[in-house]
């Protein structure tokens, strides 16, 4: 498993490290989804800044995470997609439809905060 999950207030932050195999990604998805419930998280951020390739499987997994998190009543933001990776993804036809995106962790947290204004996040 090459991803670490941090909890900050009610947000789970998953940082993906370097190259991830399909199994690694699937494991991350499972852990995040169970984590949302366990920690009663209102937001999830998946930071893919370190990911060198985001292929169709990875994109599908990210969309899956977004949808599952939403079903559990929380918001998910994918942050840190690098210019090269974004370029490659659109060439391939991958658009992460339905997933919220932000430039980096900082912007991702700000986005979650603006969406949850008046919610538990005000605590920080």
């Amino acid at each position: 498993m090459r991803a670490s999950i941090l909890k900050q207030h009610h947000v789970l932050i998953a940082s993906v490290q370097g190259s991830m195999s399909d199994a690694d990604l699937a494991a991350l998805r499972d852990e995040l989804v169970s984590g949302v419930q366990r920690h009663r998280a209102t937001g999830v951020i998946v930071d893919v800044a370190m990911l060198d390739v985001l292929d169709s499987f990875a994109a599908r997994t990210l969309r899956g995470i977004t949808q599952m998190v939403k079903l559990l009543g929380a918001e998910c933001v994918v942050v840190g997609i690098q210019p090269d990776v974004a370029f490659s993804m659109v060439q391939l036809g991958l658009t992460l439809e339905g997933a919220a995106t932000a430039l980096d962790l900082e912007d991702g947290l700000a986005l979650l905060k603006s969406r949850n204004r008046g919610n538990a996040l005000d605590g920080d």
Partner: protein
Amino acid sequence: MATEEHELVVPIKADVDIVMARQRARNLVSSLHFSSSELTLIATAISEIARNIVSYAGEGEIVLQLAARDRRRGLVIIARDRGPGIADVERAMQDGFSTSKGLGLGLPGSKRLMDEFELVSEPGKGTIVTMVKWER
């Protein structure tokens, strides 16, 4: 097309081998003049066709070769398997923008990422995908 010493064979049996194939390709082309976005395109295309091997044939191999043509250098990627093959190649190459499952984007998507793309498949015998990316 390519010289022997610039050829690498990466066996593909499980999903971890997909990552391996991407890394081997990156190392192999380090002496070529590919921009970082071109390297990402190459790695992504390898990922897609290697995954097709794992998903549909179970096992196979990816051959990476350095090539030269008209003073331009490039990378040739050959994905070979002895899987069930593709009965309807034309359909497999159709763009699956709307589908998120199956072959959907893998083959036509990889074709868009590379400069050259060829698919030869025989039902029951296997599939060979040959792709080339040239330096600009």
